[in-house]
């Protein structure tokens, strides 16, 4: 039986881990390689780097970060942010990433999912979906950090991504993201019941019980968190100890 995964996510810009402060400023808070190694030591089952570098030149810096991380961290590494082409997939995988996550580019060009899955295997194609609830109760796909509503139904998009060869869905609820009131269980249930591939829950966790909730009340295969781990409000180890108490299968290191 597969263990439920706990995945810390690091935002990386120009080769440094950064955190936004109240959506206005961004401050540098560390070296991504060191942060990833620390999470590995805590028992992270996978690590996600989200490249928020705006410039094209920054991509090389990110690949260097991936290369250096792969020399020190021996759990799967997923890299996303700004992935647009098959070459981006290839470069990132060659640098040492195990999976590549793609978001806006896949919404604009869904065939990118199929091409990447055909060439590199579906196991390394993670489709990240940012979504929010509409007044009519449906979930809609948004891109550019929630600013642009694509008018696409998120559940239908998840199904299509699976058909095209996505290996996993990384589902972020823009309604719960940053609120720390818990994962968006309704949205997760809507997507988990529509696809067979693993769904990673993202957005909203702020306390231990939110992890228990997401695994007891939804079919999510993994839970992702950024600030919670980054600001050491909780460690990966604490989360797993709590999950184990609730008989949720986890890998304890």
């Amino acid at each position, binding site marked *: 039986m597969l263990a439920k995964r706990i995945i810390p996510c690091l935002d990386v810009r120009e080769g440094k881990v950064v955190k936004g402060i109240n959506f206005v400023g961004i401050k540098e808070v560390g070296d991504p390689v060191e942060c990833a190694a620390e999470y590995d030591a805590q028992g992270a089952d996978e690590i996600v780097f989200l490249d928020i570098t705006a410039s094209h030149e920054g991509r090389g810096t990110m690949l260097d970060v991936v290369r250096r991380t792969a020399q020190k961290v021996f759990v799967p590494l997923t890299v996303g942010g700004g992935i647009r082409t098959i070459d981006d997939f290839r470069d990132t995988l060659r640098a040492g990433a195990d999976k590549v996550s793609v978001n806006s580019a896949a919404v604009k060009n869904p065939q990118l999912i199929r091409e990447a899955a055909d060439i590199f295997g579906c*196991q390394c194609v993670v489709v990240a979906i940012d979504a929010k609830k509409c007044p009519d109760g449906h979930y809609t796909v948004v891109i550019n950090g929630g600013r642009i509503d694509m008018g696409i139904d998120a559940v239908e998009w998840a199904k299509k991504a699976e058909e095209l060869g996505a290996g996993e869905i990384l589902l972020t609820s823009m309604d719960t993201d940053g609120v720390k009131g818990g994962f968006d269980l309704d949205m997760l249930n809507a997507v988990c019941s529509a696809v067979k591939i693993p769904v990673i829950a993202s957005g909203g966790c702020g306390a231990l019980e939110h992890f228990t909730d997401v695994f007891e009340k939804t079919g999510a295969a993994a839970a992702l968190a950024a600030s919670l781990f980054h600001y050491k409000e909780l460690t990966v180890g604490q989360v797993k100890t709590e999950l184990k108490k609730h008989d949720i299968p986890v890998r304890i290191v």
Partner: protein
Amino acid sequence: MIAIVDYGAGNIFSVKNAMDYLGLSAELTSKAEDIRNADGIILPGVGAFPWAMNMLSQSGLVDVIKEEAVKKPFLGICLGMQLIFSKGYEFEETSGLGLIDGEVKLMTPENLSIPHIGWNKLIINKECPLLSGLGDDEYVYFVHSYAAECSDNDIAAYCEYGNKVTALVNRGTVYGAQFHPEKSGKTGLKILRNFAELIK
């Protein structure tokens, strides 16, 4: 020195990275001579069975691997593990290296998705030096759609994914891990270290 066989398959650098991290002497090579002179052999691999056998045979490495794997510690990882069996059925029937009797077939777990991706628990079937020092609650990282069907005598550990899935095999000097020790955190690194310690 351990020879990591480079026949064009993916993920060889992660195996090399892990060996470097552990301070174990290992070199990537595609030369028969290096494999013959090495103290141990690792056959990594991500890809498809027929393609990999074809690449090994084009590189002229099939015979040397067959000869050397029974003389010194040999570890196949993921596809490299599948290749040690007699036959594979990915896309078409293909002969493997035949180091352990068995066939590699598509997994068919009920109501579970394929590929089998993620951390799964090792269930020990028999004593194996690669598992030395490990506890009874160890998880390792799997990414595969095909699995080996072989004699219980050769299975050191399996995992549960709908059915029993062959995870670690051993016969004589030949070892095979369906999971990726180089991606399995401390547990995986311990398994790689245990393998290196087989070298006298």
